[in-house]
């Protein structure tokens, strides 16, 4: 991209470039906090239409709690996305992890602590496999994780005999959803904690800076002494680990494992990740934007369901949101390029 040469004069002096810090312009503020305003408006509208169901504390708290699983999947997803890699196996990792817990705990009576450890280790292993194929054989991450994800789905169906397995140890359920703090299930706080960790990682660690450079310019990163392949593998392991953790939380949320559950998480997670990249820190995948987007999307869907619109609205909403979000982020990026 050529920086226009007409900007400088013969003696090398450069015209002052007008401030582009998005935080200090009206458009900047609109971009950064627009989604929060729209979200608030959505809550007001649904609240006015259905005051005695939508705006009840039980609805709000169960919504915050039950969607924590989706928040964790989305947070996992934005890590490799920042490094410019896709991980579409993450939802299948989640399902497999929850199924590993159910099978071991319910059918083989393995103590729940061990089950969780094994489930998380499975996630790490999948991340290593993804990273191996992507960085060693230079295969597009989308293809590798699509294949691995489908493979994992097969494994899930196999070990569960394609059945939902219920009866997971109540202690897990207790510490995920039953116990409440300030009236909200604990899993909400787990998700927020992970959000804080990812935010800290992205903003205040050398690793986070390196992930960003690898994603924005792999060659620049390499020439800056960053071991780009190692960073990419690390990101894929992190996303699979968070996928597995989401699986643990899923098993705790419903006390069971459903071999098909992954399907309904992948697209919403992508939609939230891309929508999140248009807010809070516009133009960049960011954990607060992603978390906010999950709840924004869920609010919209829940509200529409309460209005009596049938369940297919979920697909319409998530699918539409993904395309709109990607278009928006393209527009944000494109406008910056032109400036």
């Amino acid at each position, binding site marked *: *991209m050529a*920086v226009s*040469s007409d*900007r*400088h004069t*013969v*003696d*090398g*002096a*450069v015209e*002052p*470039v007008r401030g*582009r*810090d998005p935080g200090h312009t009206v458009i900047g503020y609109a971009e950064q906090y627009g989604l929060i305003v729209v979200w608030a408006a959505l809550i007001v509208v649904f609240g006015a239409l259905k005051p005695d169901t939508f705006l009840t504390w039980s609805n709000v708290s169960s919504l915050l709690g039950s969607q924590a699983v989706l928040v964790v999947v989305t947070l996992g997803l934005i890590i490799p996305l920042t490094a410019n890699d896709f991980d579409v196996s993450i939802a299948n990792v989640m399902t497999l992890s929850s199924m590993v817990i159910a099978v071991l705990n319910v059918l083989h009576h393995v103590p729940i602590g061990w089950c969780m450890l094994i489930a998380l280790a499975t996630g790490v292993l999948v991340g290593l496999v993804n990273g191996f194929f992507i960085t060693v054989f230079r295969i597009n991450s989308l293809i590798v994780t699509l294949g691995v994800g489908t493979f994992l789905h097969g494994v899930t169906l196999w070990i569960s005999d394609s059945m939902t397995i219920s009866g997971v140890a109540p202690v897990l359920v207790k510490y995920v959803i039953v116990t409440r703090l300030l009236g909200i299930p604990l899993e909400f706080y787990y998700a927020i904690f992970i959000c804080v960790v990812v935010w800290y990682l992205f*903003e*205040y*660690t*050398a*690793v986070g*800076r*390196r992930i*960003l*450079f690898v994603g*924005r*310019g792999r*060659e*620049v*990163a*390499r*020439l*800056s*002494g*960053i*071991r780009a392949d190692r960073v990419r593998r690390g990101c894929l392991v992190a996303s699979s680990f968070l996928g597995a953790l989401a699986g643990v939380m899923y098993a705790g949320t419903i006390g069971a494992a459903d071999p098909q559950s992954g399907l309904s998480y992948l697209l919403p997670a992508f939609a939230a990740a891309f929508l999140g990249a248009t807010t809070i820190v516009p*133009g960049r995948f960011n954990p607060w934007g992603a978390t906010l987007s999950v709840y924004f999307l869920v609010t919209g869907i829940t509200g529409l369901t309460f209005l009596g619109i049938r369940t297919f609205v979920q697909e319409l909403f998530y699918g539409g949101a993904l395309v709109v979000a990607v278009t928006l982020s393209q527009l944000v*990026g494109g406008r*910056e390029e032109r*400036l």
Partner: protein
Amino acid sequence: MPDALVIENLSKTFGGQRALARASLEIMRREVHGLLGQNGSGKSTLIKILAGYYAPDPGGRLLIDGDQVELPLEPGEFRRYGISFVHQNLGLIPSLTVVENLFVGELASRLRWGISWEQERRRATAIFAKYGLNIDPAAAVAKLPSVQRAQLAIVRAVEEMRLGDRRRPARGLLVLDEPTPFLPKRDVEELFALVRGIVQEGASVMFVSHDVDEVLAITDRATVLRDGVVAGTLTTRESTRQDFVEMIVGRRVETVPARPQDFGREEADAAIEGLSGGTLKDLSIDLHRGEVVGLTGLIGSGFDEVPYLVFGSRSAEAGCLKLGAAIYDLADWDPSRAMAANVVLIPGDRQNAGAVASLTVADNITVPVLSTEYSPWMLNRRDMLRRAGRLARQFDVTPGDPSLPFDTLSGGNQQKVLLAKWLQMRPNLILLDEPTQGVDVGARQKVFAAIKEAAGAGAAIVCASSDYEQLATICDRVLIFGRGRVVSELIGGAISKESIAEYCYLGLVRLERGLEATEAD
């Protein structure tokens, strides 16, 4: 018989600067006509006018086969007049087969159904046979040896030329734009045999080159451009290499004197030894603290690969790097190890290799020192911003606000940011690739000053560049490359813009004598 191409009085001005001034030349029917000149001599401007990329200044005339053609040409209009181009990159699609590449123009422009590939392959074989070539039409282009790839591109151009000029099927003008720099010497001869065959059939060829020897070998006549002006046209048979070099460089060249050895120097502080990889073969260079060593040569000579191989961003086959007492194996080397050894590279491609354009100046400046200057698990963002601001001021970056995105800066200021990014590490060895490419005059002086200062602080500096003036300004020693080896060395007072140019063109002569000598052994 009218001339194949006549150019009269052709000029092109870019923003007040004359890239081409009243150029005239004629190419006869069945002639191989060379077009020679240094970088910036107006060669590529002339070619781009013919290709229809540039509109020339009014007043020029262009005659093809005796018919006057209206200027400017539209892009691609040259096809209608039976002109065809083969550029250096050849324009082939490596993953497709030979036959698909050969007929790509036809397949793209005509609606054809039910293609019989069997028949197309036979047709391709027949075409190749006409030129005495034996290329498998079913092979993937990526699998062909480089010379066959070049031959395929040329044959395709000739066939398209015929296609475009149905009125006069045997005629046409083929423009070969530097097709040889990446071919081994032996293969160049094979390519020339093909060119001669094409001329036999009645076409004419314009052969654009840097390489005097190739022009001597293949052309009938050659026109030399210098600073946008036609310096003259020589009849090849009656001219010597010396005549050509003189005309290209623009002054009388004395025969090569023995250069005095630089005995004043102490033992080398650092050295590149036995480096092979890419074009380079067994390259050894001694380096000294405080010395700026320039690397240059013609395109394809390999000088520009040295910084990347020594930094480990491209992998070398063999070689080692000595820094003080330490010895590093360059065959097992990567940028992070190079940085740990206090070696830095400032790449030529600012936008794709130097910095991430969409991130801020501060982000870009601080990325190499994240774990050396800060605690990596608790970055002090405010201090990073302060540091970047301090460095931006020190290197005179305007505007000096480090929170601006990198791509809002001008080319010169971007280069200053890159210098700040790398020189903050106080490196022992600095590798530069075209450090002032696309940089304005003021910034150029700042870059030179920064390089001198780093040398003064005790760094050894290697600068690869094809900007002879820049090399003459900053270098203590200039090494001139030809076909992957150092062919000449200029030291101290012997370095000037003209002497570098002269040795670049003469260098190949000395090399070939040397090679013939070794082959005779």
